[in-house]
């Protein structure tokens, strides 16, 4: 027996999924907003729960670490243990009975929260995903208003992150020196802390 749900239908379906294949099938690319929120609340350095990998030249949010022209993406770290399926997100806890759950809950990246919905030309759609083993998702499983709002938040956070990454890339280009991933993370922490402070000052005013 399970208590009455106090969440949306989509959330309930996701929570009750045992395997949570979406948490191992995909690489969860992050925005700075996700990194800041998780790092601050969980009191974890970003290097602990993120990894970076080379991004295609067309990636608008790829960050540079030197003037070589290479750009990188940042994503949630994967767990590398024998007990878990390979490629499982580091925040996925799989207890002995196998019913996995996300340790981040409401803190999880916005792209995870909005899964499986996407906005195409402003219209909410269900992505063509093959990863889920628990169900074939349909629009009937989601609250259209809530999902549209989430997809809009994701679009805003991505746009903001692109802007921040562009500023970093200009800095790297001008400095003509090698930076480490940790230095990029520190830059993000500084920028987002400043942004939060400004938002709070505006709220007080």
């Amino acid at each position, binding site marked *: *027996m399970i208590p009455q749900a106090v969440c949306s239908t989509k959330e309930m379906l996701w929570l009750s999924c045992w395997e949570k294949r979406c948490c191992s099938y995909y690489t969860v690319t992050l925005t700075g907003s996700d990194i800041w929120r998780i790092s601050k609340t969980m009191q974890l350095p970003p290097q602990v729960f993120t990894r970076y990998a080379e991004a295609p030249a067309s990636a608008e949010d790829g960050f540079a670490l030197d003037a070589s022209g290479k750009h990188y993406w940042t994503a949630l770290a994967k767990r590398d243990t024998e007990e878990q399926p390979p490629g499982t997100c580091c925040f996925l806890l799989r207890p002995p009975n196998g019913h996995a*759950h996300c340790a981040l809950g409401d803190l999880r990246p916005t792209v995870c929260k909005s899964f499986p919905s996407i906005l195409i030309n402003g219209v909410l759609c269900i992505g063509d995903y093959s990863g889920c083993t628990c169900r074939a998702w349909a629009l009937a499983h989601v609250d259209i208003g809530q999902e549209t709002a989430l997809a809009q938040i994701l679009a805003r956070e991505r746009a903001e992150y692109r802007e921040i990454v562009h500023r970093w890339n200009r800095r790297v280009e001008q400095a003509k020196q090698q930076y480490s991933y940790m230095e990029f993370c520190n830059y993000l922490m500084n920028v987002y802390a400043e942004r939060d402070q400004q938002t709070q000052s505006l709220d007080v005013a």
Partner: protein
Amino acid sequence: MMNQIEHSPCAGCHQRCCINYTVTITGYDAWLIATELQRDMREFVVYYPAQKDEPDNFRLDHGEMAFKIALGKGAANGEEQPCIFWLSLPEGYARCSIYPFRPFVCQSYPTFLNEGLVQLRTDVLCPQRSWNMSTMDLPAWRRRLLRYQMEYDIYAYVVERWNDFVARSPADVRYPINLYYSYLIAVYDRLHEMRQTISKAREESILQQWGSCIERRINPLKQLQQNRDQSFGPRWMEFVADLLATIDSASALELEMGTITECLDDMAKPAQEMSVA
């Protein structure tokens, strides 16, 4: 919200408390985790024989044995067996995977209330000099401790109603633990509905009033139960009366009228029993 996060020494600790202790919980803790994760209690709650006589000991039959509920343990990590919700992360870090709704006993560790004041326990597993009262948000800690005590008092009454039901049952009946879990969910679902109607300001005032009862070592629910004829002037006493009425009516519906016993057929899945030396 994020600026209000208090830096916790637990962030840099190796969480020995999450590995070494058996985390005894209240019915509310179990209900909240089950609700937030949409899980069956059998997936994460264990029950174990009580070692001493306490108000949260429940019975399953007429025998001498009484039990308590606790969080289960996860997969063994070498010689250690951490809490079922303990999450190991890269680079030796670890975190609680249900932090926002972790049990009250975890939330208030390593403090306790003494004559209304927050005090640090000395028998803790925390590394030396981890905690410093001057850097702790003491009103927040006090609030957590009061809430814990309030939930414990409520749970004690919920358990008492269950034990009354068991005592009135035929002597040869032993109820399955799953029925007890179903009872808890049914009662706390009702309590949740009732509490939804209470404003934040009133909740705060109720908590402070409950605190004054704690200092006098009184469980307001028990006191009111014994003096039902008294007039309930103060608004917080009305709240206590509402609590009593909600638990009584939920218990009567679920136990006396047999609503949850109808679920017995659905209880083939075994619950976890834990033996404590």
